[in-house]
């Protein structure tokens, strides 16, 4: 655990006094302290191209009154700096006179270990694995033109000090291992990417030459794409594979169920609570309690313990994801979904691990039922326009389906759909739910936070496929 006051002219006691004094007429607020260490080691073009290390330290001071948030952050943890921040908050909230200060629930549960993944493995051993990855892939297939592989690791220590001196802490490890390979055959180039990650040490993932599986998967995707033909254009049936394709759920539904957009009534879902928003059999949860997962959190960035929040149960909209501010204004409770990228940013309600739960059908039944459509196995990124509800995501591995059979692979295409109606178009839910491999980063208001997704195979009756083949 970091001692944030160790090398500062500011004592904990003085900080507590400034916090209590600044927040005394406010509804909420806290001092958020953060110390993070991260590394990135990159192999590219046959060489170790980058080995970098970052150490970041700072605080963010927040005061909330009514709907107004005042925020100030700095890298200097000093008496002067905290006082300056305090002045800045007070000048925004000149007329504040409120006192919500709902207490923070307590929990002793932890969902990851207090480790520093960077220090648990030597630089040399990481470089060795990256070199092995490069040799392995280039030997395995003569068409390999380029290999990029990297390790990134982080340890983030946070401390939250509330008015009155209440203190909450967390130490969060996070790692990621990624391999990207480019093939060239008969003048055509295609690439494949695969990665794994979570709140663990590298060794937990890389035992028994596990890295080979990551390489094999990246190579397999690239090889499939080398044979791909132009994707069709127009509305058709879409079968989504299990696991990572659940970013459809994240984009189409997840963002629209975040508390802030619903309080502001800018989400297409804001007036649909308790109503049927999905086909029967569709249940979606946002779960921060899965051990060592990328989107898991012991406590959120306001100190609220994480939980498993049911968003949609058997087709009915049950809950939004809330931080303290939006929960208070919507007269409900925080779901432990208050997150921020780091101390430079204010807290927003965000997703953790968003999952569609199992149904009864098999993937086989879905494919067989499709006369003309596509089978989408893997995706790049996605994006949503919360207000119109339209969302997109990009296929990185997909196949055409003709008369109930999987056919040729098709080139990467964007799929577009309408969030509020897409889940009503889900006509089969599979029994093969899978978590993604631990690679997701969600962007919102310029802040990126690690997230997870999961789903079984699903059949969507109608979606627009953005190919070039009319």
């Amino acid at each position: 655990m970091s001692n944030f006051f160790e090398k500062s002219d500011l004592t904990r006691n003085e900080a507590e006094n400034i916090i209590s004094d600044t927040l005394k007429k406010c509804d909420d607020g806290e001092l958020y302290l953060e110390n993070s260490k991260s590394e990135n080691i990159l192999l590219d073009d046959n060489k170790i191209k980058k080995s970098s290390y970052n150490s970041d330290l700072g605080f963010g001071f927040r005061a909330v009154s009514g709907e107004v948030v005042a925020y100030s952050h700095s890298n200097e943890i000093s008496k002067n700096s905290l006082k300056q921040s305090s002045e800045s908050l007070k000048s925004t909230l000149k007329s504040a006179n409120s006192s919500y200060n709902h207490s923070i629930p307590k929990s002793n549960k932890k969902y990851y270990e207090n480790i520093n993944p960077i220090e648990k493995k030597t630089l040399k051993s990481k470089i060795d694995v990256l070199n092995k990855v490069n040799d392995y892939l280039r030997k395995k297939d003569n068409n390999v033109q380029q290999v990029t592989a990297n390790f990134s690791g982080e340890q983030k220590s946070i401390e939250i000090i509330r008015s009155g001196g209440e203190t909450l802490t967390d130490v969060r490890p996070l790692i990621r291992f990624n391999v990207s390979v480019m093939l060239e055959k008969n003048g055509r180039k295609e690439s494949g990417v695969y990665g794994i990650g979570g709140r663990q040490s590298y060794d937990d993932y890389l035992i028994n030459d596990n890295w080979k599986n990551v390489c094999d998967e990246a190579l397999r995707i690239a090889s499939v794409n080398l044979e791909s033909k132009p994707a069709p254009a127009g509305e058709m049936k879409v079968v989504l594979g299990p696991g990572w394709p659940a970013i459809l759920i994240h984009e189409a539904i997840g963002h629209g169920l975040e508390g802030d957009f619903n309080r502001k009534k800018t989400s297409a879902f804001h007036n649909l609570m308790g109503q049927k928003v999905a086909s029967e059999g569709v249940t979606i949860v946002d779960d921060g309690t899965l051990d060592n997962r990328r989107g898991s959190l012991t406590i959120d960035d306001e100190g609220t313990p994480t939980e498993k929040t049911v968003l949609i149960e058997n087709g009915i909209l049950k809950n939004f994801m809330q931080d303290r501010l939006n929960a208070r204004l919507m007269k409900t409770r925080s779901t432990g979904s208050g997150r921020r990228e780091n101390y430079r940013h204010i807290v927003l309600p965000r997703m953790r691990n968003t999952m569609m739960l199992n149904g009864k059908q098999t993937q086989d039944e879905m494919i067989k039922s499709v006369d003309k459509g596509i089978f989408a196995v893997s995706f790049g990124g996605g994006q949503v326009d919360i207000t119109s509800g339209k969302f997109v995501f990009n296929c990185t591995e997909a196949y055409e389906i003709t008369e109930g059979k999987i056919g040729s692979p098709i080139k990467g295409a964007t799929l577009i759909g309408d969030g509020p109606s897409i889940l009503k178009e889900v006509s089969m839910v599979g029994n093969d739910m899978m978590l993604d491999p631990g690679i997701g980063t969600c962007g919102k208001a310029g802040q990126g936070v690690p997230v997870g997704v999961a789903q079984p195979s699903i059949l969507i009756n109608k979606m627009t496929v953005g190919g070039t083949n009319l």
Partner: protein
Amino acid sequence: MVKDQEYLEKKASYCLDYAKKLGATDTIVNVGNSISETVNFRNKKLDESNRSDNLGIDITTFVGKKKSSISSSNLLRENLNILIEKCVETTKNTPEDEFNSLPDKDLLAKEVKDLNLYDDSHIENDNKVEYLSRLETAASNDKKIINTESSFVEDKSNFILANSDGFCKGFKTSSFVASSVAVAKDDRSMERDYEYTVKCHLKDIKNAEELGKKAAEYSLRKLSPKKIGSEKIAIIFDKRIAKGILSTFASAISASSISRGTSFLKNKINQKIFQETINIFDKPDISKGQGSRSFDSEGVRTDTLKLVEQGILKHYLLDTYNGRKLNLKSNGRCGGTSNLYFENGKINYKDLLNSNSKCLYITETIGHGSNIVTGDYSVGATGFLVENGEFKYPINEITIAGNFKDMFQNITLANDLEFDYSTNSPTIMIEGMVVAGK
């Protein structure tokens, strides 16, 4: 106040000295400070204030041909010592790369040109509130506007870039940004759109009322959109997204993509990749330009480059490392382009709209659908159907797709270029793309 040149220079030179003492043969240090103050409004009321004070240092050390780097926001000497020790130690344990080195001395910038990038004006938060209040009043005129969110950001930055070959330069920049998002609603739909202004000098930012009105107007015109059928159709890109096509072009000619062989424009130098009416410039010395600079992020002098001349690709964007791999000298583009733009076309905006009896006018795209390796492009889009030069109705939930190799050959430019951002394009039309809809 942001930290002054003297403070930053002192930090930089301390790091250079300490790294040398520990055995670094070369070192690069970039140290900077930025302070920004933001006020956000929502529905004509104060929503958020945010003061941000950011310090940062990046240090890269070389031991012969070995290289490694560290970065931190903690500039206390004790912390810097620990980090530099770690950096030099890591460098020694990192494999050699023959292309690692500082830039050639004779390419380094000799002077920092006065490009008018800093305005000392400070606008108090109360005045930001007053600006936003006028903006949102103007934006909320129509009762179909159900939500407005606006923000005003004032930012002042300063930095020093120094290396062990004696380079030590930096400059202050300022930026004033006002933006507005309006949500409009009718019986059938809810839509949002935006408008913003970003300038180095306070007095140059757009008028508050004008900004608010535009955001509202853009959202209102998108209400009750239709979906159209799948077809091949001419597509017109509004200026604000046309510049994205230039950004894709820039990533495809970056020396790193070229040297790694992962760009569809590899080996296209001196070849015709656009029609001969097309010229593309990257001009770093525009007064008050959003992307203006005297040197790149390695200290290499930046001159104007005519990247595309009469449709022919003339330059890659070169940094020292990737330049060496390609056997070319850096042209001062480490960190990317400066002020990148298409030279104006010959035809005016009205005539461009009229050039096809039916076309699609795109105002926004979503998704990350540009593949630099293959040139394939497929994104979600929002816009309008245009018939005989007139906007007929809004379009939503469609995708547009093509391949940049073909798209580049089919670009027609209007003559309405303005220098509002660091990358700027006139309105453009691309024929032969495919729309997927119903």
